[in-house]
């Protein structure tokens, strides 16, 4: 690649387009009646989803994995309203001048702690703790401090929690300010996080948070990955069939988030001010760029280790695949076919929630295993095509010179094979880097997840996405250059230049 300039230009154009906003022309909604026939966004796996279907059967309901994506779609004019809980509605409107909400309270829900079905002991313990916290006014105080009507800093209470003992594993969604979210240092905080710490204090157990996506909460409880879900969960009858709930610890109001009319909107800030504001809120405020830096590290780490594991695995599978023994060959073929025919996200979730269900294993390692397996299946086939591409005559020549089969492979096949496969291998590796963006599903904070977290605080959909796109591009570009260097190193024509007179 001579110059990446056209790509930079493309990024810049997308970025500028994002700043101007693209929703002009879509009429804003003012009443519930209008909303009933509009495009409405909800978050998958939440009570809003069920509520929307019940209250607005005629609405065109769109389902999002993350409430932030729904809000971004609303801002972009692809939705007319978003149904969600009050704290989110409040923060989204405070941080986005072009959003507001309808005053109607559509439902009031019990927010409870979810535990595994049959774990009566823990549920009763939690119930009595909640009762006690209600009785001494702690919960009311927490509500005042976290669910407040201004944008000032949150008042946090320092809680000494036990450091030894069996940890209580708590599942949370990290993008639900002020219920549960990450502070600048990446620590889990929020109303429910404080509640979890208070529970840990009373139980005499340290708290271990597991950051999950909403659809993963119940599977994580059922499979025993977490002990309790304390993250603004509504106790619906449907959920009660799969897990148990404690008594409620607060009520959650569901409201409709809508866009402000173009006409009503005052003249917005200039594009330069918008850009400066985006940089301030998304990167500088609370040192949020650190989240990106750490996410970047995680992404690079997972990519490199998966590639290493996958390459080793691929070499072994390739050896089996090319064996004359059917006992080795058949399993290799089956492995390759299954791994190549399964989406890597599904594989990742299966390994995390099924294979290692009851084992306490770092999701980082699970990611490396899942992507390593996937990469192994692909690289096995790449290796095979590389080996088969080497002239059989040269192998015979090596053998007839007196090399053993292994020596022939090392001195004659391998150097030629590497040269042949590197271009394909490079592409496969880059696509691996990009594929790792789904590790957020099993609570790994990679680059994509870092942008999600930033978006959850700033409610700015576009800037963090563009930042992440640029960063992914940079990682890929650097890796392309590095592998390109290896390619040059192994090119015999380059080597000749170093050759001197014998």
């Amino acid at each position, binding site marked *: 690649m001579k110059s990446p300039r056209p790509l930079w230009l493309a990024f810049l154009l997308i970025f500028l387009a994002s700043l101007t906003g693209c929703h002009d022309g879509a009429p804003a909604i003012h009443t519930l009646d209008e909303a009933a026939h509009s495009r409405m966004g909800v978050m998958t796996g939440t009570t809003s989803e069920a509520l929307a279907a019940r209250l607005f059967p005629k609405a065109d309901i769109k389902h999002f994995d993350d409430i932030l994506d729904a809000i971004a779609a609303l801002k972009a004019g692809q939705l007319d309203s978003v149904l969600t809980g009050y704290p989110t509605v409040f923060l989204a409107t405070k941080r986005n001048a072009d959003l507001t909400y309808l005053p109607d309270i559509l439902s009031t829900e019990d927010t409870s702690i979810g535990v595994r079905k049959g774990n009566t002991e823990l549920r009763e313990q939690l119930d009595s703790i909640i009762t006690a916290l209600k009785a001494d006014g702690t919960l009311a105080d927490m509500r005042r401090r976290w669910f407040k009507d201004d944008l000032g800093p949150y008042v946090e209470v320092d809680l000494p929690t036990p450091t030894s003992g069996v940890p209580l594993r708590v599942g949370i969604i990290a993008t639900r300010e002020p219920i549960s979210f990450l502070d600048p240092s990446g620590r889990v905080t929020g109303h429910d996080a404080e509640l979890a710490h208070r529970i840990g204090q009373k139980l005499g157990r340290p708290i271990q948070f597991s950051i999950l996506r909403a659809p993963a909460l119940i599977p994580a409880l059922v499979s025993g990955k977490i002990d309790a879900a304390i993250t603004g969960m509504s106790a619906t009858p449907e959920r009660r069939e799969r897990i148990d709930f404690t008594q409620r610890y607060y009520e959650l109001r569901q409201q409709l988030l809508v866009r402000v009319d173009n006409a009503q909107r005052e003249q917005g800030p200039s594009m330069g001010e918008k850009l400066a504001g985006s940089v301030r809120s998304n990167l500088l405020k609370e040192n949020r760029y650190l989240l990106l830096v750490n996410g970047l590290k995680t992404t690079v780490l997972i990519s490199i280790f998966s590639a290493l594991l996958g390459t080793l695995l691929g070499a072994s599978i390739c050896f089996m695949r090319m064996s004359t023994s059917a006992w080795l060959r058949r399993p290799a073929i089956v492995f390759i076919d299954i791994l190549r025919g399964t989406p890597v996200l599904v594989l990742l979730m299966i390994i995390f929630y099924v294979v290692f269900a009851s084992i306490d294993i770092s999701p980082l390692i699970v990611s490396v295993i899942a992507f390593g397996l996937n990469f192994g299946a692909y690289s096995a086939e790449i290796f095979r095509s590389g080996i088969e591409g080497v*002239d059989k*005559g*040269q192998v*015979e*020549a*090596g*053998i*007839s*010179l*007196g*090399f*053993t089969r292994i*020596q022939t492979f090392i*001195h*004659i096949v391998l*150097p*030629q094979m590497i*040269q042949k496969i590197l271009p394909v291998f490079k592409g496969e590796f880059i696509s691996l880097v990009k594929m790792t963006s789904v590790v957020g599903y099993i609570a790994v904070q990679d680059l994509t997840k870092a942008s999600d977290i930033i978006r959850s605080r700033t409610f700015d959909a576009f800037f963090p996405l563009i930042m992440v796109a640029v960063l992914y591009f940079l990682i890929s570009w650097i890796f392309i250059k590095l592998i390109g260097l290896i390619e040059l190193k192994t090119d*015999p*024509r380059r080597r*000749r230049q170093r*050759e001197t007179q*014998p």
Partner: protein
Amino acid sequence: MIKIDRLNKHFGNLHVLNDVSTTIQKGDVVSIIGPSGCGKSTFLRCLNLLERPDSGHVLIGNEDMLAIGTNVSAVRQKMNMVFQSFNLFSHLTILENLTLGPIQLKGVDPSAAKEKAMELLRLVGLAEKFGHFPEELSGGQKQRVAIARCLAMDPEVILFDEPTSALDPTMVREVLSVIRKLAKDGMTMLIVTHEMDFARDVSNRVFYMDAGGIHEDGTPEQIFQNPQKAKTRAFINRTRSLSFPIETEDFDFYGMNAQIEAFCEKQILSKRLRQNLLLLVEEVLQVHRPLLGRGRLTLTIEYSERLNRLELICTQDGPDRHPLEGDHLPDEFGVLIIRSLVESLDYSHADGQTRLSMIVRAGAPLGSV
């Protein structure tokens, strides 16, 4: 030095090598000739076990290649092979092609290996190409490098598997002269080749292989000038033939003529020669007509490309009786025409068969205007 005992090899149902046995002495230069698909290359590849024989023994020196426990790779170091398609290592320079084996297999010091390699490249006339890659060389140059690569391993025997078959005619000579030089220096070599002239002057033994075996084994003089067996002779003379058995007077004369014409066309015979042949066949049949009741008559047409000679042979079961002499002839006219159409005419009788062989005249018939 090489002893081959009852070697057998099958490819599926095809019996490629059928009980091949022979002994090769040190210093022998053996050319292996024979028609395509007769097992020449397979025979060679069975010696260094690139193909594994189904049964038999291959003794190189005292080592039985097929015995369990033989270090086959070590034996191969002493018995290298030159291939039809050169098979140079394409990722290595010419020099590295020559030094890889000695450095990796024999533990030769790299600088000594380079020196020796340059010496060998000088021997094959390619010293200035040492830093090039194989793909930058012509076919003939590649094959000379391949020979030098073998020599770098100090082999006792070199096996050549059709070393010039993939070369342009202009490049054949340069490769053959290198092989000639090796023969002069006393290298033991087995050469599968289609270059008959080369085989004749380079080797001290020639194997004619046919039907999965060594059909005839002899000195070049014997094989090329006086082959003992019919198949060898046909191969050496590059003879093509066509036979017609005739039992009664009512055979398909026109069908036979059509086949003869097709044969002549395929061998690219001159128009005159073809006409002479057809006339001759007609007259010979005329002469034989009264004798047809006595026994089966077989007409054979043989064309030797090497000698540029067309021969018509008539064999018939029966007593010793010259078909062109005697009172069965209606008149002398037919015999006269026959004699005017042939260069020479030869009659013999053996095993109760008369044999009349005539070499067809290439020019105008004698006495014609």
